[in-house]
Structures are given as structure tokens and as C-alpha cells.
């Protein structure tokens, strides 16, 4: 027992992403009644970013499937807050519970075990079971395309990037951003500053201003607020956004990596309703073709030729082009992906290296 626990633990440590795999092969799941989905949101439904994107998907899915989908906002990442919210929904007959946070993972796993006839979906979660599926987008694809826009717009070839914390799902956007930029400008560099917080406009502004001092002329981001875009507008440079189309908040924004959850959730709920739903054992890790993240492009400053190249590359990604295809060597000279191979999902989630051309503290 101890051995098994230790093995499970080491496995979890090795794969911090969408793991807990390799349990039993998932059994198929069927609902007893018609689907009644409900959404549990981490923050305000008009937070301008992450939660708002999910709420907009909720409205679109509801319209498409002809369902009224209720939402609860501001449910923090602890069991004492999540549990009563979800149980209230279940008591009232809701049978597809959609979560919205990494921090819901454990509680959702417990709830899924306690309510085996309810289907659970959790955005940015890490746990999966017979009736619980986490989902996230392959944001490196959308950020790669934004990187192309940035590389094309930059005159100095120096791009800036404001990230939250230096772990896998942020690091891959930084690397992809540079790799995209180098499709257009092979000499481009990306300087990245991490703020250590997802939602701190004061630190984001300081980071963006420090980057501008270093002479960058396009700024990308993987933090929650549009502050870096607003700084870009003040300084007369361009920017690319994340979560939603940030041109809503700043005229500097020429492209954004945006969530398109409705493209995933609507067919997924239909599949659950049809019966025989099978959970992906590692969770659903959605590419542009599956509807996770896509781009909102392009702003007025983007020339037609550049836009056409970005859109052509988007089609190539949908057709299966791999961004992290070997050979890839990191900035310290270690070979990360061999010739002819593609970086595995597990290696993506644990990415702690940057490609040459990324200027960072790591």
C-alpha cells in the first residue's frame, strides 16, 4: 500500500499537468436524465479575462443547445466554498457541473466519487475519473500565432513578455511566442518578466515599464489583467493579449490568444447527453482544432501579407503541424527534443527551459 502510494506520489510529482492517468481505463458514463449544466466560476463573470471567457462560452453553449445554464461567481479555491455550491446545484437536479480552476481539482475529484451519476468538467484542473474530466487549451499554438504578429510588427526585433509564474503552462507560451516571432524575423528575441502573481496590475505595470525601458517595441502577456496592453498604448508600442480579445481595453492590442471553450463544451455536453461518454484519461488537452484557445486577429496595424501568413500557419496547425518538433535545443545547450520527435504532453506540462533567444532570469 505504501509502495503504491509512493509510486502514485512520484508519478504525480513528475507530471504536474493533466495527470493522474494510468488508473483503470475509463468506464463510459451515461446520464439518467436530460443534461442540466451549471457553471461554477472562480471570480467575477465580468472580470475581463479568464472567468468572463468561460461565462461567454456558457451563454453560447446555452443558446446552441437550448439550455438555461446558471452560473455562480466568486467561488474561491477551497473545499468549504466549492462543496456547498456544487451540492446545491446537484440537489436542484443539475447533472453536468462545470468548474473553472486548478484549485478545484481535489474537491471535484471527491465530489465526482460521491455523485457518480453527475458529470464533472473542470477548466485548468488536474484530476480525472470516470465522471470527471479536466480540460485546458494548447495555448502554445495561439501564442505562437500571436508571436508571429509580434515578430512582424516589431522594428527592433526585441519583444517583451509579461508572465505570471515560470512553470510549464506559462513557459510554453513564452517559448512558442518566440518561435512564432522567428517565423517572421529570425533574429527576434523575447525578454520575459514574471510578476509572481496572476492578477496584480501594479506588478504588471512595473514589469511592462521595465521592459519598455529595455527597448522592446511589442509586448505579449500571460497574466490576467490587460495592464501590459494599456502600458503599450501609453508608450506608443504594440501588444498582444491573452484570455480574451484585449483590443476591447487597449488600442495597442493587435492580436490576442483567446479562449473558445464553447467549441469544446457544446459537443462535449451533447456527447454526455447521448450516453457512453468516455473521459480522456489525462484530461482533454485541446488544440485549436478541438476548440480550446484560438486567436483574435488582427488589428489595423497588421499588414495584409502578415495576416495572411498568420492565418496560413493557423491552418497548418489545424492540419497537425507541431510547434515543439525536434530538433530543439534549449538556451543552455541541452537537447530537449531529438530530431524527428515531438515533445510529449507530459514534457510540455513540466517545461522548465527556454529556447535560445528568450532573455530571462532562469
Amino acid at each position, binding site marked *: 500500500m505504501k509502495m503504491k502510494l509512493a509510486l502514485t506520489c512520484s508519478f504525480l510529482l513528475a507530471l504536474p499537468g493533466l495527470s493522474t492517468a494510468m488508473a483503470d481505463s475509463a468506464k463510459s458514463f451515461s446520464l439518467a436524465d436530460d443534461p442540466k449544466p451549471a457553471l461554477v466560476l472562480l*471570480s467575477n463573470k465580468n472580470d475581463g479575462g479568464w472567468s468572463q471567457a468561460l461565462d461567454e462560452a456558457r451563454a453560447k453553449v446555452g443558446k446552441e443547445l437550448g439550455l438555461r445554464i446558471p452560473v455562480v461567481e466568486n467561488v474561491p479555491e477551497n473545499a468549504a466554498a466549492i462543496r456547498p455550491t456544487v451540492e446545491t446545484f446537484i440537489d436542484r437536479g443539475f447533472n453536468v457541473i462545470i468548474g473553472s480552476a486548478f484549485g478545484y481539482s481535489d474537491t471535484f475529484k471527491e465530489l465526482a466519487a460521491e455523485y457518480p451519476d453527475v458529470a464533472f468538467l473542470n477548466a485548468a484542473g488536474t484530476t480525472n475519473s470516470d465522471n470527471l474530466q479536466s480540460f485546458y487549451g494548447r495555448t502554445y499554438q495561439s501564442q505562437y500565432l500571436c508571436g508571429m504578429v509580434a515578430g512582424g510588427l516589431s522594428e527592433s526585433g526585441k519583444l517583451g513578455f509579461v508572465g505570471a509564474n515560470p512553470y510549464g503552462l506559462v513557459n510554453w507560451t513564452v517559448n512558442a511566442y518566440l518561435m512564432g516571432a522567428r517565423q517572421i524575423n529570425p533574429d527576434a528575441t523575447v525578454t520575459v518578466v*514574471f510578476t509572481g502573481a496572476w492578477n496584480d496590475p501594479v506588478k504588471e505595470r512595473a514589469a511592462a515599464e521595465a521592459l519598455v525601458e529595455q527597448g522592446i517595441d511589442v509586448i505579449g502577456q500571460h497574466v490576467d489583467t490587460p495592464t501590459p496592453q494599456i502600458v503599450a498604448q501609453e508608450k506608443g508600442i504594440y501588444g498582444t493579449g491573452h484570455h480574451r480579445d484585449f483590443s476591447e481595453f487597449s488600442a495597442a492590442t493587435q492580436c490576442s490568444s483567446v479562449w473558445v471553450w464553447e467549441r469544446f463544451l457544446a459537443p462535449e455536453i451533447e456527447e454526455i447527453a447521448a450516453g457512453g461518454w468516455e473521459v480522456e484519461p489525462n484530461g482533454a488537452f485541446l488544440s485549436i482544432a478541438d476548440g480550446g484557445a484560438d486567436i483574435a486577429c488582427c488589428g489595423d496595424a497588421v499588414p495584409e501579407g502578415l495576416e495572411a501568413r498568420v492565418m496560413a500557419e493557423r491552418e497548418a496547425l489545424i492540419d497537425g503541424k507541431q510547434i515543439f518538433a525536434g530538433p530543439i535545443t534549449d538556451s543552455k545547450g541541452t537537447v530537449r527534443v531529438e530530431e524527428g520527435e515531438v515533445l510529449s504532453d507530459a514534457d510540455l506540462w513540466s517545461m522548465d527551459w527556454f529556447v535560445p533567444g528568450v532573455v530571462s532570469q532562469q
Partner: protein
Amino acid sequence: MEFLINWLSNVPQSAVPFALAALGLIVCERSGVLNLGAEGYLLVGANAGAGAMLTTGSPMFAFVLAALAGGALSLLFALLVINLRMNQVISGLTIVFFAQGLTSLIAARNGWTSRSFSGLDQLDFGLLTDIPVLGPILFNQDAIVYLTVALFAGAVFVFKRTEIGLQIRAVGENPAAADSTGVSVSLYRYLAVVSGAMLIGLAGGYLSVGVSKIWVDDMAGGRGWIAIALMIFARWQFWPALAGAVLFGCIEALIPRVAAVGLQVPQYFVLMLPYVATLCAMVWVSLDRTRHSGVPAALGEPYVREERR
């Protein structure tokens, strides 16, 4: 050299929120009322300031409103701890949670979240601003930076030289003695709690109007708690609190600039620095037994006339 100027000229802006919040905390706590609600006052100040900017566009009005919002919220706190003599720890924490909910509600209702607005202009002192190096660092800041220094000087004057300051200190050290000489404990505690909260509200207003130029939920980001640590580190003294805030400002302004030049220092180490500095300062303060720790003697204790302790 340019790095140094860029860094140091950003220090005041990073330091002011900490400085004003610590100032407000000291004013409040010198009257014997423990204040754990700083994060909440920062939030209502930031929220009111951002709202005022988005609706009227006047920074002056925004700062007045931010201070008033802090003061208004503190009336509730004062009612709980001074009149109803509730536990000051719990009441302070309640204020934080209440402010978090209230500000996100107000912002959501009015559509303020993530909307940018213009902030404050830097003052130009002509020749002084043109002095190389020192000009941009000392003489090209916004008005609130200079106001902060003035407010510190004012607070020192009031507490050292005036009757009001003496009586606030008296009710914080020995309320029974003050009461027996005819000083109204409740009145002076109210005065200290409300004016302290107005200062923290102003700090919050500066956070949104002066620094980030945007409102997002929970944007105080734990700065209220750092201000509490600063107050303890400064032994409830004004000038050391300002010095501590400047130290924090130095580190906060340095962090992104070290990253932007790509200096190879581990990320988490750098992000940890302000907190390490706080810890070291607190340890240093507690090791130094030759000096009084500075805690107001009656801090945290509700005053009940003729109650034996």
C-alpha cells in the same frame, strides 16, 4: 547609470502605497485599536479612486473620495470594536472580507473592471527637474509623493507637539488613566481609527489612480499585510516606517528591472526578497532587548470603564 536612474526614479511610486498605509496603521494603533483591516481599506480606497476616475476623470476628486471611502468603512469597524467592544482581531479580518466582496460587487455593477483611465501627471519643477540624475529621481514625481512626506511630518508634529496627539497616545497606553483625567477614550479612539483609515484609503486610491491606472478585483494584492509588518518593524514610529516603505519600494522597483535585463538570479529568490527583508527586520527588532518594542500598552484591548484587569 541609466538603469540606476530608471530604478531609483520608480522607487517613490512603489513606496508610497506602503508608506501611507503604514502611516494610517500607526495613527490607528497608537490609540490602542488593533487594525488588521488595512487590506480592506486599501481595496475600498482603490475602488473608489478608480470609480471616480472613470466617471469624472478628476484625480483630485478621486483621492478625496478614496480617503472618504476608507473613513466610511472604518466607522463600521469603530462601531464594532469601540462601542460594542468586539474582538479586534476578528473585526479587522471581517473588514477585509467585507471589503473584498463589496468592491467586486460595486465594480461588477458599474462595469469598472479592467477599464483603464489616465492617471497622475509628474510635477515639473523646471530647473530642479533638469538636474542630471537627481532631477528625475527627486523632482519629477507626482503630487501624492510629496504629499506623503508632508503627511508624515504632519503626523509626527501632531503626535509629538499637540494635545490631540498626546491624548491619542494616552488612550493607547493607559485608557483607564486617561479616562480618569477626563479624556474621552471613545472619542479619541474614533478619531484615530477614522483618520488612520482615511490615510490607508488614500494609499489604496494611489494604488489604482497613481500606479496601476486600472481596477481589478482584489488588486491590493496583500500590500495591506506588508504594511502591518512594516508598522511592527518600525516599532509604531513614523520616520522608521517611512524608511521601511522606501526599502520596500526599492526592492519592488528593482525586481522587474533585474528580470528585464536578464540578470541570472533565480526568479523565486528575487520575488521572496521583500518578505525576507520583513522577516529579518522583525527578528532584529525582537532580538534587540535594550529597546522598548514600541507596542502601545493597551493595544487590542477594548476599554470598559472600571473593569479590573
